[in-house]
């Protein structure tokens, strides 16, 4: 009986909700309309492919020591070798895994915290909203990059720990976006209808409001992945990277000490820029596809 009521209620609510298959399909059409976003998507998929195929592409691994030290790009080492004889291309191939995992971890954690902390003030409003909004404002003003540097410098350089620290300091934008979305969507007819049928707070929030309002957060997550890759590289560049995991930033860190060997700097930096660019383009494309205001011609 309870299940039946639940089903009827869902059908009723979904019939007036803006979601459903139709929207997903039109999202892809509009997203694909933007060639730049498609380019970003292709680059991201390529990066994922490289990360998965690392053992095939660079079977010797990133730390294999070749005899050629500091060798410029050649047919054997297309991106050259570093002072220890490690192949730069292998380093980049294997580093893709670390950069991608780091980015996904940071964005995922930030999304989780941000959506939860943003949904509460948006849903309840009033004093709760005031309190949370003040808290967001205060958090936003704390110099985030220094905070990360300080914590990593004091507590050691482990990449998982770093990802957690970065994720825990980057949720504010997600929270503010979620709050704003929940605030407007909860006034819509289909949400009122759901409340009227006696759905619980959690059900209204997680089944009806959040799925319909998450797109700015998804777009922001793509931008956050871009930011995370840069932050990881920056920390490594400052000597605060995890030396057990050869990331793209770690490769640049060693490039700094051997500045006459230009290939050490050029290729890892290109890899970072390309992937960051891709995530930025995808984020742009998602906002474009979901936000009709950005599409209308002046």
């Amino acid at each position: 009986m309870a299940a039946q009521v639940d089903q009827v209620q869902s059908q009723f609510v979904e019939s007036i909700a803006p979601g459903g298959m139709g929207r997903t399909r039109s999202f892809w059409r509009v997203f694909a309309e933007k060639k730049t976003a498609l380019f970003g998507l292709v680059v991201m998929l390529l990066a994922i492919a490289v990360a998965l195929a690392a053992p095939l592409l660079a079977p010797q691994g990133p730390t294999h020591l070749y005899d050629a030290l500091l060798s410029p790009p050649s047919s054997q080492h297309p991106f050259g070798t570093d002072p220890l004889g490690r192949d730069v291309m292998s380093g980049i191939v294997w580093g893709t895994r670390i950069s991608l995992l780091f980015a996904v971890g940071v964005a995922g954690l930030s999304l989780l915290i941000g959506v939860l902390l943003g949904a509460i003030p948006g849903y309840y409003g009033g004093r709760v909203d005031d309190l949370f909004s003040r808290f967001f404002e205060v958090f936003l003003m704390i110099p985030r990059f220094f905070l990360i540097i300080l914590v990593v410098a004091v507590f050691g350089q482990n990449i998982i720990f770093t990802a957690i620290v970065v994720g825990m300091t980057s949720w504010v934008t997600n929270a503010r976006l979620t709050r704003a979305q929940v605030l407007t969507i909860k006034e819509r007819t289909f949400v009122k209808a759901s409340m009227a049928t006696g759905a619980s707070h959690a059900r209204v929030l997680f089944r009806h409001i959040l799925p319909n309002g998450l797109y700015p957060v998804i777009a922001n997550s793509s931008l956050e992945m871009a930011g995370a890759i840069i932050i990881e590289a920056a920390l490594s560049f400052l000597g605060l990277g995890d030396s057990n995991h050869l990331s793209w930033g770690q490769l640049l860190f060693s490039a700094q000490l051997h500045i006459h060997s230009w290939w050490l700097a050029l290729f890892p930096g290109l890899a970072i820029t390309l992937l960051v660019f891709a995530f930025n383009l995808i984020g742009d494309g998602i906002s474009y596809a979901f936000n009709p205001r950005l599409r209308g011609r002046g």
Partner: protein
Amino acid sequence: MSVGRLPRYVVRRVLQFVPVILAVLIFNFVLIKIAPGDPALTMAGEWATKEQVELVRQKWGLDQPLMTQLLRYLGNLLGGDLGFSYHYHMPVLDVIMLRLPKTLLLVLTSMIMGIVLGTLIGVYSASRYGTRLDLVASVLSLAFYSIPVFWLGLLLIIVFGLNLKLFPYTGYISFGVKGAFSVVVDVLWHMVMPSVTLMACLYIPVFLRISRASVVEVMKEDYITTARAAGLGERAVFMRHALRNAIVPVVQMVGIWMSQALTGVVLTETVFSWPGMGTLMYTAIIMRDYPLLMGIFLITAVWVVLTFLAVDVATAYLDPRVTYE
């Protein structure tokens, strides 16, 4: 917003800043408490003698109960005592004050040029909305924004410093330069590459995008249609109505980047060994000079808070609709 209400609003805003500074202070305090090892040793430095460690323990009251310690810490700060940098053998505040002007010189120069160039290109791009040129500007700005500053810095050093030997790439002044004019020229010469890096990766893309987006947004407003319907020429609509209203988001963006002036340059300064706050932070990390790190963190937070206040006042002045109630 009437000018008469400004003071009350400022007071309210200032009260909001207290928790920010307090949060940073308590964070600093807790960080040292829970850092691995003896806090007195952490504060005094790895190479401190036994007597020096004891001195630190007494001065910060590290043998007292926790609350007393926190109060003592706050008391020291209120007296302007941010601690002692064991690496520089100087009070933390003095070290920071030596470096701050050099950072501001680099950041403000680059930012002003970046704002002007970025906004000009952005507005022009918006006036050609939807054309090929507009698309190129848009994509290129995002591409440059994706470049890590330290990487572009390294490449510029390799190409223009090491190989072409066009520009100096370390420090902010050559050794032995004398005479006011030569000094100014020499410093400007040293600033070329760090400035270009900052402008290319941060300021120009950011201000290009925000000014373009905000002009495009304004052009869709009803009052623009009204102005057109009233028979105003396209040029007059654009100059008189669009630009004026598009400026608020740009000003807010200026504020955001001003607030990040000290954090945003850490990497650029490090690459070019520019002796500002960024390289100071780098040295403090390498030397594990915790009092200095905490001092930099605090001063940066104060800077952020002050710039936010300035932006709010500027926004209220520019946009009469903003009331902050």
